[in-house]
């Protein structure tokens, strides 16, 4: 890993203590707390889900966290610049993963998202998220000086759109939107022109409007009707037993938690299954019902901490690649937290986005820990790292 061109001739691999000292320990502590808190929350939320095995999901989630920690260490050990140099294979792998879903994944509730490997399920779109940001950051970093050119921006868009469309076609609207958020963040942090940014925002606004309103009015259905209904989350009162059912029950669950929560046994929304998907998509609502405002605010606070430290990583990166990569990771993370938590409280549309570190699901857990590993890797090799831990 020694780089001849590095201005810093420190043999990092042999100086483990020094390397550890250059980690962002606040970020690490926040993530550690999130994982632990998430496991504890899931233990309560899923206590009555599997008859005879109260710890069924917790054990699986803990194994995933262990795997994720290994991924974290690996990501930490690898110099991020390697990914930049390997951007083409990474990009190809991203597309391949996205394509694998179509022949291999079995359809679950009308959507192909999971591939079964042995007794494990894994979700390519989750892994794709990080790979996508890596490839995109590499592409942009290599053209750091020509980012003012509209042609480069368009090229980046073109490359990004292929995996986005593939995810969208699974269909997994929520994750596709997370990809879009990451794409925007990468372009934004990489430093494309304000005018280009403005044009992009306007274009995507137009695209959303046409997909949701104009094209259906003209008879072209890009989205499934249920997706449109879900996006129209503001009028869920109109049909509480239909499309709005999940969200209504979710809001009820959150609200009924009150200040200090109803506890595990008395949280009827979760326990009696009124709250659908309460260990996956709507896990936040279940947590809020059981642990109340204190418990939910604690979780949000930890997320805020992670986002803050993540943004800091952008600023300490030693190179453009790290900056863009960190930007994409942090914004995708922020997007996921907002959409997932927002959807349980009726301020965001219902999409199948997992809540990082809490939602039961191995892919999400591993990928998120790997992403944190990437942030730490950038941090450890960044400016502050050179000057020692602050």
């Amino acid at each position, binding site marked *: 890993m020694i780089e001849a*061109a590095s201005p810093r001739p420190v043999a990092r691999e042999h100086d483990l203590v020094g390397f550890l000292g250059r980690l962002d320990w606040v970020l690490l502590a926040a993530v550690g707390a999130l994982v632990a808190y998430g496991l504890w929350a899931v233990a309560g939320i899923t206590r009555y889900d599997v008859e005879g095995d109260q710890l069924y999901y917790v054990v699986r989630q803990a194994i995933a966290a262990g795997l994720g920690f290994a991924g974290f260490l690996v990501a930490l050990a690898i110099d991020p610049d390697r990914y930049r140099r390997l951007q083409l294979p990474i990009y190809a792998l991203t597309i391949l993963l996205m394509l694998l879903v179509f022949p291999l994944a079995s359809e679950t509730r009308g959507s192909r998202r999971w591939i079964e490997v042995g007794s494990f399920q894994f979700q390519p779109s989750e892994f794709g998220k990080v790979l996508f940001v890596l490839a995109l950051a590499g592409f942009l970093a290599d053209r750091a000086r020509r980012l003012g050119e509209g042609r480069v921006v368009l090229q980046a868009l073109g490359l990004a759109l292929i995996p986005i469309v593939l995810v969208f076609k699974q269909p997994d609207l929520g994750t596709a939107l997370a990809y879009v958020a990451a794409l925007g963040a990468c372009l934004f942090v990489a430093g494309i022109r304000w005018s280009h940014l403005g044009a992009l925002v306007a274009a995507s606004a137009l695209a959303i409007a046409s997909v949701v309103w104009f094209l259906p009015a003209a008879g072209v259905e890009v989205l499934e009707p249920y997706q449109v209904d879900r996006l129209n989350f503001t009028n869920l009162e109109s049909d509480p037993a239909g499309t709005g059912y999940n969200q209504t029950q979710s809001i*009820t669950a959150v609200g009924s938690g009150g200040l200090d929560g109803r506890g595990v046994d008395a949280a009827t929304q979760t326990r009696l*299954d009124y709250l*659908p998907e309460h260990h996956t998509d709507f896990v936040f609502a279940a947590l809020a019902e059981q642990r109340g405002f204190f418990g939910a605010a604690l979780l949000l606070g930890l997320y805020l901490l992670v986002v803050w430290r993540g943004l800091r990583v952008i600023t300490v990166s030693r190179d453009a690649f790290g900056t863009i990569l960190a930007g994409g990771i942090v914004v995708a993370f922020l997007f996921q937290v*907002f959409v997932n938590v927002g959807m349980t*409280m009726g301020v965001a549309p219902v999409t199948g986005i997992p809540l990082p570190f809490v939602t039961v699901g191995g892919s999400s857990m591993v990928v998120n820990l790997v992403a944190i590993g990437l942030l730490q890797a950038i941090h450890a090799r960044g400016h502050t790292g050179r000057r020692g831990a602050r």
Partner: protein
Amino acid sequence: MASGYPERRSPSGRFLPPDPRTAEPHRFTPQLALRVGMLAGLALVVFAVLFLRLWALQVLSGDRYLLAAQDNQLRTVRVEAPRGSIVDRAGRTVVSNVPGTAVKIWTADLPKEGRYAMLQRLSKVLRVPLPRLTKALEERKGDPLTPILVKTAVHEDQVATLLEHRAQFPGVEIVGTYLRDYEYKALGAQVLGYVGEISPEELERLEKDGYRGGEKIGKTGVEAAFDGYLRGTPGLAQLRVDSLGRPQGAFEERRPAQPGNSVRLTIDVGLQRAAERALRHGIEIARGHEAWNANGGAIVALDPRNGAVLALASNPTYKPSVYVGRVDPKKLEPLTVEKVAKERNYPGINRAIAGVYPPGSVFKPLTALAAISDGLLSPFEYIQCTPFAEYGLDNHRFDNWNPFTNMPMTLTTALSQSCDTYFYDIGNRYYERGEREREYWTAMQEWARKFGFGQAAGLDIGGELPGLLPTPEWRKQTYRGIDRAWNPGDLIQLAIGQKDMTVTPLQMTRFYAALANGGHLVTPYLVSAIERPGSEGEPAVPLRTFAPPPPKPVAVDPQALSVVREGLYQATHDRDGTSSGVFGSFPVPVAGKTGTAEKVVNLPGYPAGHMEDQAWWCGWGPFDGAEYVKDGGGRRAPLVVCAVIENGGHGGVAAAPAALKVFEHWFGEQAGVQGEVLSD
């Protein structure tokens, strides 16, 4: 995408490979600082939104959502109240309840996907046709909160299957219910009526009275007329359920169901059974005497003192239980499908109150009463009874039923032998007098009206037909052209109860009750009291008793009445009386009149306009209208009976023996050997 570094000119011109990190060391530029700052701002806004929303939901409106969450699990259901029973005059239970199991569907809980498949499974388990399920679902589309009753009287095996595979039947509820149980099978079917699920039309009318969809309601007869008393008040119960509607724990009663009150009938079960048997007997006799088309009839028996109906039989009949539980559409066909109903001669009709027949000779006492009261006839006046008579400008010929008679008769003899020409003459006198004095134009009909003809008798279960009392006015309104004219023949025929007049058996019984009780018109009634059933052997507590309106005296000449009564006694006891052969040997003095009324009937295989004789007998006993005191002690109320055998031929042949059976049962006496019956 390029894997290496793009070729570009290095400003220094050195030949080192281009490396952005060395060529242009990455710096934290103000531009980047601004953008990271903006992202930080975005993050703060996002978290502020989330925190505020969380605060609003949990802290500000937490109580409201807590209630909503608690409500979520509670399902309020109406608990069916056990329907009141129906008892006879002696308190014998005629209709009661047995516990049963019903299956209901809560539409709101049906799965969105696979709904059709679930209904298919349900239809297979319960053996209810699938189209019926989907139709019921379609009808209740707008009302997801009222469960749909799929089936009552579900068999145990089916219940077990449903319970075993509960998860496969979301929204399907198994509840206890009450099923109507008919102690005496078909007895009094048309009187008792039946119970069914409330129809949309009934619901619209009755919702304000507390009726709700899916509930049961009396459809006809006593069940319908007294539904308000019988139904009770549904209770409310709450049940904790999970999101699939699976009960978590037991029902918690919020308001107990109030059982319905029982209804006490004036009917005597024993007499009712005797009357129904007598009716079948009469039909059989008729068929045995060449009246092969005899296929129905009615018997009414009431207490002439107050109008209490003691038996109200109608034939053909049905078992009300076909409406209970596992309703078999095939079994319902005689009641619901016109074609089948016609073949079976409409078993659903209560002929005693809704069957209309020409009265024929049983009407003659009225003609006589009217004529004497109006001064058109002297009771002791002789009128020649001939094989036929001719009246009107065209000398229209009117036949006597007995072509062999030719003798002068007084009223009593004319009634006893039922001489038609005697009464033709009275009819003609009315016509002629009406032509001279207009106030007598409809005088005979007015007497008929005073005795209750042409109008419902006012029975408390409703459903009566008024019959028809023909008048010149009616004829003018009903017919066109030459048929509008009111001719002598109209009154001449009316005098013997023929041509246009129709009556129900109940109306005729009411008239004979007035003959029996000295000229008082009673209001017949079927329900004497509403009672709260006593618990465990205690007697029932009457809550409300129905006193019929007091019998209304009809201003009829008392002498006329006594002569007519005498004539009717001779009709059952004189050597030549039309039903002496039937009643002559009966220990209880019974007076009564036969009738053989021609009616145009529509029978399969006969030309249009085919006439059949309707056999009548009406009368009462004991003759004095007082209680009958038996030899060995014991008293029996007087009884007035009317029997009609549809297409039964001669009244003396078919109807009189049927009526006799009723008297025999009531008074507990037997008639001797039946004599030769003289026909009417």
